[in-house]
């Protein structure tokens, strides 16, 4: 019964989305507040309906209702309750419903907030959001309804893929999807601005919080996904330039560029057309990602497997939404008023360079991901594009942008002075060179790369701290005055500081882990010892059987020692899930500061002397945790920036005006 109610709610949401478009657009054309108000009501209604449908799906999963096809394919009675719930978005159909939930949720928030948003812009934005809703909810209703029943229900389900039965994986799609779909609001605001013909500082001030929300959530989502792949897949790495990873990374790159260009538009009114272009592009890449992951046209280790018919439908949706967005852009953008002028050496130019390099890096990732298809279609050649390409091309482009990063925030708007900025950065440059040289001298092996990475990371962190010290006038004024100045800094400035330091932290981790990783594999019998690198020794103490809730496992217990001192006990498992007949690894991580001793328990083999042994793989991953810590700092920076008074959603604009002098924002 609930499944039918859920299906009904889904169809209702489809109808309400159509009403949302018609009422908002009609209200905008006739200048009727009653109609646009009704359109906003429909947007909220669509969200409530989708939420009801999603609740129905969750209920079916929790109660193990195997007469629902999707539940039968992705759940099992023995599955722990938590994974029954998260199974709701573990499949293609369920995750598309989650996508629609986020899409209508954002639509409802836009509809409910902002007496500050001018009503015309708001009406066109809500209408555009409604159009996206019609496309995606329509797809869910007609081509991928997760609530469909089967004629002959099974007694037992096929179980959720065991690799997905992990707390980090379970919470990663909601973050990722809220990030992907958050770009839809920015897209709709872009469409609204093009239709209304005004892209100015006030519009940019509305775009910034939405892109910040989406960017921060996407950052968390990608980081959780990467951490999941790090410790669940048991391969010791954290990023493989796999098409699915790239699909989530491209919207992130575009959103990062958008955050920076929107700053220029907000503060200086310049680069307006470019900011709108990026606003449209960010969600286009989100949709492209959704298509790539689901179409099966790219080979990837973790794509959804699916029939091509749905892939073509998703491609149609992508074509319609992005096509009309960019057609509108081509038509209206030339009439946008030119923005403020700026000199070649200025904060604007630095941010423009940031955008240039980020765009080129996005193109590198896009071409690298799609090139096997292009080559196949264009000259029938089978070509592989793997990590060596991405590391080289993407790495060199990002290296260039990171070199100029600390310079930008120290530069004045409109017309800056490079020499003065470089003088203020001398100690950051010195620290970077010294750190790089030390790593170059003492780090084993592949020294040059590690040294360059560490130098860049220190340069970023040092440069960002320099900027902070400049704002506080540290050293030129009393300490208490400097502290007062720091406390008075706008949250946006703190957000930028955290985000840039986070990037530096990430870079340090990636450089040291990427070059200093030690991999050891040995067939160990109980009592055997192995040297695992980093000065750590492991010995296999015992091997036992474990009865899990829905799996059986062999568990090895290894004691980790350094210079004879016990450090920790690692208990990796090799799990067998009878419901699906799959075997997975439960990696044991022994956290040492920000580094990991990473232990994978493998199959049973005959050892060197004919005794039974187990294949144990050990990775010494120095500084690996900084790879995940850095992006979380970046997302935290996004959150701090979002709490800035200026950006708070729904802030009455007049209040900002009456503050008078306070609205003369300090030159950030």
């Amino acid at each position: 019964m609930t499944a039918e109610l859920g299906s009904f709610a889904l169809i209702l949401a489809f109808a309400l989305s159509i009403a949302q478009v018609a009422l908002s657009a009609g209200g905008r054309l006739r200048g009727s507040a009653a109609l646009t108000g009704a359109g906003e009501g429909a947007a909220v209604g669509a969200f409530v309906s989708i939420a009801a449908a999603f609740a129905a799906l969750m209920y079916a999963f929790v109660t193990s209702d195997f007469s629902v096809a999707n539940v039968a394919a992705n759940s099992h009675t023995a599955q722990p309750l938590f994974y029954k719930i998260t199974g709701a978005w573990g499949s293609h159909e369920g995750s598309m419903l989650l996508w629609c939930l986020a899409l209508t949720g954002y639509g409802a928030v836009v509809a409910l907030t902002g007496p500050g948003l001018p009503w015309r812009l708001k009406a066109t934005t809500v209408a555009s959001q409604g159009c996206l809703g019609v496309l995606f909810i329509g797809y869910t209703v007609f081509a991928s309804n997760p609530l469909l029943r089967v004629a002959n229900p099974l007694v037992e389900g096929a179980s959720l893929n065991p690799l997905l039965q992990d707390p980090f994986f379970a919470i990663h799609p909601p973050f990722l999807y809220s990030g992907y779909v958050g770009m839809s609001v920015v897209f709709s605001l872009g469409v609204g601005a093009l239709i209304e013909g005004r892209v100015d500082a006030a519009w940019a001030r509305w775009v910034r919080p939405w892109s910040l929300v989406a960017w921060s959530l996407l950052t968390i989502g990608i980081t959780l996904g990467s951490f999941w792949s790090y410790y669940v897949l048991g391969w010791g790495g954290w990023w493989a330039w796999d098409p699915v990873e790239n699909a989530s990374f491209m919207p992130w790159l575009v959103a990062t560029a958008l955050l920076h260009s929107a700053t220029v538009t907000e503060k200086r009114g310049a680069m307006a057309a470019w900011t709108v272009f990026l606003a449209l592009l960010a969600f286009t890449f989100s949709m492209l990602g959704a298509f790539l992951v689901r179409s099966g046209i790219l080979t990837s280790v973790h794509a959804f497997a699916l029939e091509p018919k749905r892939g073509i439908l998703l491609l149609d949706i992508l074509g319609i939404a992005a096509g009309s967005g960019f057609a509108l852009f081509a038509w209206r953008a030339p009439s946008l008023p030119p923005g403020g002028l700026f000199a070649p050496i200025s904060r604007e130019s630095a941010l423009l360079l940031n955008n240039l390099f980020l765009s080129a890096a996005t193109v590198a990732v896009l071409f690298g991901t799609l090139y096997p298809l292009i080559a196949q279609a264009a000259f029938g050649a089978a070509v592989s594009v793997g990590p060596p390409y991405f590391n080289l091309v993407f790495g060199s482009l990002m290296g260039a942008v990171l070199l100029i990063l600390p310079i930008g925030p120290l530069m004045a708007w409109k017309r800056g002075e490079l020499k003065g900025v470089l003088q203020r950065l001398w100690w950051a440059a010195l620290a970077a060179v010294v750190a790089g040289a030390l790593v170059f001298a003492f780090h084993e092996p592949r020294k040059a790369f590690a040294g360059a990475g560490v130098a860049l990371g220190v340069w970023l962190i040092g440069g960002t701290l320099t900027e902070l010290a400049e704002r506080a006038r540290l050293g030129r004024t009393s300490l208490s005055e400097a502290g007062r100045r720091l406390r008075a800094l706008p949250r946006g400035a703190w957000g930028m500081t955290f985000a840039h330091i986070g990037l530096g932290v990430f870079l340090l981790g990636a450089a040291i882990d990427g070059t200093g990783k030690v991999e050891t594999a040995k067939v160990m019998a109980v009592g055997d010892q192995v040297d695992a690198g980093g000065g750590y020794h492991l010995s296999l103490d015992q091997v036992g059987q474990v009865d899990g809730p829905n799996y059986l496992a062999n568990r090895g217990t290894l004691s980790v020692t350094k210079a004879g001192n016990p450090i920790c006990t690692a208990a990796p498992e090799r799990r067998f899930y009878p419901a699906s007949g799959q075997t997975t690894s439960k990696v044991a991580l022994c956290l040492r500061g920000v580094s990991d001793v990473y232990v994978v328990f493998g199959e049973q083999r005959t050892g060197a002397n004919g005794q039974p042994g187990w294949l144990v793989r050990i990775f010494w991953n120095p500084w690996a945790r900084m790879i995940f810590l850095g992006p979380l700092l970046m997302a935290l920076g996004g959150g701090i920036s979002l709490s800035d008074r200026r950006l708070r959603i729904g802030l009455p604009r007049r209040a900002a005006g009456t503050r008078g002098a306070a609205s003369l924002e300090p030159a950030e």
Partner: protein
Amino acid sequence: MRLGRLLTIVAALVCLAAAEDPAEQLPNRAQEAHARALFKEIRCVVCQNESIDDSDAEVAGNLRQAVRAQVAEGQSDQQIKAFLVQRYGEFILMRPTFSPANALLWLSPFVIVLAGAGLLVFRARRAPAPEASLTDAEEAKLRELKDF
């Protein structure tokens, strides 16, 4: 859900980082390290986007054996790659060759940077230098007034 396909994918995932297998390694540590570096450049031809360094597939194991043997014989990287390309086509290389056909792939990001930078320089030369017509305070006030 096409579970069957998912299962094969998952099965391929379970045993990653296969090349470290102690049963396969070369006795000479320098040669072994050299072979490992090469493995990362060579695709497991039946796998989903995995190098033979990672893959547990039988083909990957055979390829590793072949590469290790050639490394032990003292063949150069070029010779080994040429041997593999001759047998399996360019598909086997994780790093596409820098050929005219692949120029689009290799050069387009850098062309974008150069073209963008060129455009900026061109516009900066044509546009007059900004005059300090309004102070920042006046500009901020103007923006407040323009806010609808």
